[in-house]
């Protein structure tokens, strides 16, 4: 089987600082990491390869420096790394990102065999939109299993997969056909320590680098800033949202004192509650 894992290189949010004067996020000198959510996707793919064999291709779209993240993914045991890098991809919003990634996955299919599963993380820690996975699935017209906590069964002969999906309402067990796209939930596994052999291989490995042209992108105007209906105009640190805090003196009947204080500062609340409950 052939699985593609999409990973994104992101700034290490634990080390991001906010400029004390301009209040903007300082990215300079901040180390980059593989988006932590993507490691759960990679480990899930590695576990499937342990059981069923096959190959794993990791794919990222990013600047040339994203090669570092791909090498890291190779040290964990991925077989091949593809870096989609071109000036025309810069400034992509989710729509342009899904266009580029879906095109690259199609090309990976042609070059290295059609993928059975495409993995992404649940979301990233910088963009945080959780839109890329469903967007890729839609563009590739494959089924999607999102927020997957566990892959319960995979039947390569019947080409079906059964997975647990966690949502607000509880856990759903879903079965679908291959190929499909899976967005993997966090804390569902633990990324392995790569083997020494993999580390050595990763250091010497040839990263496949594709420009838009190499990736068979047909319409450059759909990539990067040009193809993005959404732009991030400014990123800044949040201002404190604490509104008004009122200290209520300790009272013998604390609940009543609290309610009195609430009604005092929100006079309309009392009337609304009375209207709702039907009290005069």
């Amino acid at each position, binding site marked *: 089987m052939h699985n593609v894992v999409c990973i994104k290189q992101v700034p290490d949010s634990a080390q991001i600082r906010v400029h004390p004067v301009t209040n903007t996020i300082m990215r300079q000198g901040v180390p980059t990491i593989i988006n932590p959510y993507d490691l759960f996707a990679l480990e899930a793919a590695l576990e499937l390869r342990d059981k069923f064999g096959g190959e794993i291709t990791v794919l990222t779209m990013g600047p040339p420096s994203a090669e570092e993240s791909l090498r890291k993914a190779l040290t964990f045991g991925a077989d091949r790394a593809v870096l989609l890098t071109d000036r025309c991809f810069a400034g992509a*919003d*989710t*729509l342009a990102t*899904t266009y580029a990634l879906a095109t690259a996955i199609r090309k990976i299919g042609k070059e290295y065999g059609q993928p059975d599963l495409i993995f992404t993380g649940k979301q990233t820690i*910088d*963009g*945080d*939109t*959780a*839109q*890329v*996975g*469903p*967007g*890729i*699935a*839609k*563009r590739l017209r494959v089924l*999607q*299993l*999102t*927020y997957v906590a566990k892959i319960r069964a995979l039947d390569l002969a019947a080409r079906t997969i059964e997975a647990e*999906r*966690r*949502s*607000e*309402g509880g856990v*759903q067990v*879903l079965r679908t056909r291959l190929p499909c796209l899976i967005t993997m939930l966090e804390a569902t596994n633990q990324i392995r320590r790569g083997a020494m052999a993999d580390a050595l291989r990763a250091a010497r490995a040839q990263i496949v680098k594709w420009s838009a042209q190499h990736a068979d992108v047909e319409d450059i105007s759909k990539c990067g800033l040009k193809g*993005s*209906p*959404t*732009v*991030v*105009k*400014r*990123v*800044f*640190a*949040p201002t404190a*949202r604490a509104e008004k805090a009122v200290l209520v003196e300790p009272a013998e009947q604390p609940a009543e004192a609290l309610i009195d204080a609430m009604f005092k500062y929100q006079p309309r609340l009392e009337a*609304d509650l009375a209207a*709702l409950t039907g009290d005069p």
Partner: protein
Amino acid sequence: MSTAIKAAASIREGRAAVKKNAEHFKADNHFWVGIEQGRGDVHPISWELMGADRKLAGKLKVDVAAVALRLEREAMRNAARASSYGADMVYADLVYNVQQEHRKEFYTKALIDAVNSHRPTILPSRTTFGCDLTGSVTATLLAGSTSLPCTIYKMNRTANGHRTPARDGNARARHARSWHCYHLFRGSAQSRPRRQNAIVYTWPRIR
């Protein structure tokens, strides 16, 4: 006038009002809020969204419609509550026995049909379902999305009449230039229920 005649007249008036309202919602980029539900109840985030949208819609002088897809019979009554939370119109699609929440294709198609015919700005919630749906719908419609978990959000009208949303989320990004965009919103202000008659319009059956 006998009671029966009065009742018939009021039903006719009601139907006419619903029709008029439905036409009105076709006219411009009104706001649509997705009413999310499960097990016969409405997800509270929907009411949060409604509260924030109501305020925003008031500023932009547009109306708010609630859209409830895949309504189970018992959820119908709950969805009608949307009007008491500030919706001017409730679009409801009754689909019995559709249990498969994961059947996103169904909802994606329904929303795409809706956008193509009504051109609204849609505000689904940032739940697992809302995120999935937004990703699929925007990729199909080639629409933009401002999609961080938001807490505050603003929208400006540009000179050419397009709305450009801006909103502050966890990472506090400001966006512009979105076109028919979808916003995922973790609301901070729940609207107060106000007493108003529900106008429920049943969405044409989706094939």
